[in-house]
């Protein structure tokens, strides 16, 4: 009787009315808006405390954003051009990170001797920050390929490691059930292993996305191209115009946040069961 009541309770909780869901979304939105306003207020207070002509107020930054949006930068590039190039470089490098990180992580996770035999050659690269590669890439690569390589370096390892450590966590019982029913290796890989480690892969991708953004900005700052948000920020740093630099920072934060939200939504949709665990 007790069990039945519990089950009914759970079922009731699961079928939350649409209006309640909307109400919760509005509340979350409101909380976020308040948090953002608090950050703005703290920033404004900081400008009063610091009182430096080089520490811009939110209002000065907003003005710089409008000016950049309407008139472009001093080099004649629009804000959209800078955003587009940063995103294009990031997308290419990140995609390469996924395309190489996931299969390699799977392969090494499934064939332990392969990982054990190559670990000493592979792992040290993980600890070399992508930024440390910049001087070498200037000598070896040019233009787009330089940025893609650096972003790939940034994104690859989080994705690779997440996949690698995900494989041993696949429930043996799932594999065994499939085997008992006559499933082959390829079938088990497609239908058991990959679906089981997808949450880990997506988690790795979210971490990789953050690293990729950090890398792209540092890479663009190193120079060689005229566009990109990192480049725009350096240009304004050289003109000692801080509000425009902060505009670049805010845009990077906003774009990174938006991309992370996309991945988060995918994760929430694909692995709803994970998100329903609460205390």
């Amino acid at each position, binding site marked *: 009787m007790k069990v039945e009541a519990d089950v009914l309770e759970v079922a009731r909780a699961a079928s939350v009315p649409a209006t309640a869901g909307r109400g919760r979304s509005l509340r979350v939105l409101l909380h976020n808006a308040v948090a953002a306003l608090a950050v703005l207020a703290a920033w404004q207070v900081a400008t009063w405390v610091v009182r*430096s002509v080089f520490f811009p107020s939110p209002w000065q930054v907003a003005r710089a954003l409008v000016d950049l949006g309407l008139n472009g930068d001093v080099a004649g590039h629009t804000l959209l051009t800078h955003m587009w190039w940063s995103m294009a470089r990031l997308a290419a490098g990140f995609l390469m990170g996924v395309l190489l990180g996931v299969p390699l992580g799977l392969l090494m996770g499934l064939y332990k001797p392969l990982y054990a035999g190559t670990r000493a050659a592979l792992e040290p690269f993980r600890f070399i920050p992508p930024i440390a590669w910049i001087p070498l890439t200037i000598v070896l690569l040019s233009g787009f390929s330089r940025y893609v390589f650096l972003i790939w370096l940034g994104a690859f390892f989080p994705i690779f490691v997440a996949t690698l450590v995900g494989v041993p966590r696949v429930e043996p019982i799932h594999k065994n059930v499939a085997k008992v029913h006559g499933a082959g290796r390829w079938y088990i890989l497609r239908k058991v292993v990959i679906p089981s480690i997808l949450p880990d892969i997506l988690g790795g991708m979210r971490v990789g996305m953050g690293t990729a953004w950090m890398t792209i900005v540092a890479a663009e700052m190193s120079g060689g*191209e005229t566009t990109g948000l990192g480049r725009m920020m350096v*240009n304004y*740093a*050289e*003109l000692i*115009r801080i509000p425009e630099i902060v505009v670049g920072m805010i845009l990077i934060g906003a774009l990174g946040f938006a991309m992370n939200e996309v991945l988060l939504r995918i994760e929430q949709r694909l692995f709803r069961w994970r998100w329903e665990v609460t205390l």
Partner: protein
Amino acid sequence: MNGNVDRKDARMTSMKRCTVALLVVLVALALPVVGAAQKMTTLRVGDQIGSELDYGPYWIAVEKGYFKEEGLTTVRKTYPNGPATLLDYNKGELDAVMAGFGPFLQAASQGSDYVIVSSITKGNAPLVARPEIRSAKDLNGKRVGTPGLGTIHDTMLTLYEREHGIKVEHVSAKITDLVAMLEKSEVQGILCWETVAATTVRAVKGAHYLAPLPVIPGAESLEVIISRKIAQSQPEVALGFTRALLKGMRYIDKHEDDALRIIARAMNVADALEVAKLAKAQVKITDPYMEPKSAQIIYQALVETKKITTERVKSYDDFMQRFVDYSFLKRAEESLKGWEPKR
């Protein structure tokens, strides 16, 4: 027995006297040294990578002890370019800065305050090109590297384009990376400061000076500033610093070969002397006064390219009036009448 004790006492007394006398002598000798050390003022000076020749007078002043003569010691801090140096200056991390005229104008237009006490370099904006580029027209539509959008060199490239009726893509990068970029044709030319240009000509096969000098005759390049606080509260420090640099300039003028050797030592790179000799033709480091015509052209170019706004610095004359103070230089010149730099 008593006699022994007396002799012992006498010996002890004489030893004590000797020790006291020695101590007195040591203290007497140490006092001026301590006094001098206490009087020494430390100045934190900012400059840029690979610019030892451009700031030659500074290095000569260090090497020949001209700063010490003025009761000054300098602590050098190096930055990738002028604007980066000025950002740190604005935080109060530096007392004096040597950098390009352009960055100084930009900083002033953003609210920075300083006093230009002397010009230090003119010219210093050679255009080095790959072997296949033989004329300005060949550069049309090509990529040309500069050490940054905010540097005087980027402005000089704009003026070069105007002069020759061409359009190039300005590619900004760290100055030391420009050499590698030219070598692998990522850019077809670079417009940068010496001695990086000379190093490039020597290191990259076929690279040559397409335009050794800027398009404006006697183009103003680098200045020396001191913080207004020091200029007002410690004018003797500002005077001493300016005088030491002026002595450095006079030394270069009088003993160029030896000066180049000193600068080459400061460069601390292979073939430094050859590089310094090659680079010297592109720079003038012996004139402490700003070249007004070129300075005005540079100011105008910066306004036109929107690199500076006219909100805080209304005009070129306004800038010269508020930020340039030759009084220290004039006093230094006055005090150095008849002074000859010795090797």
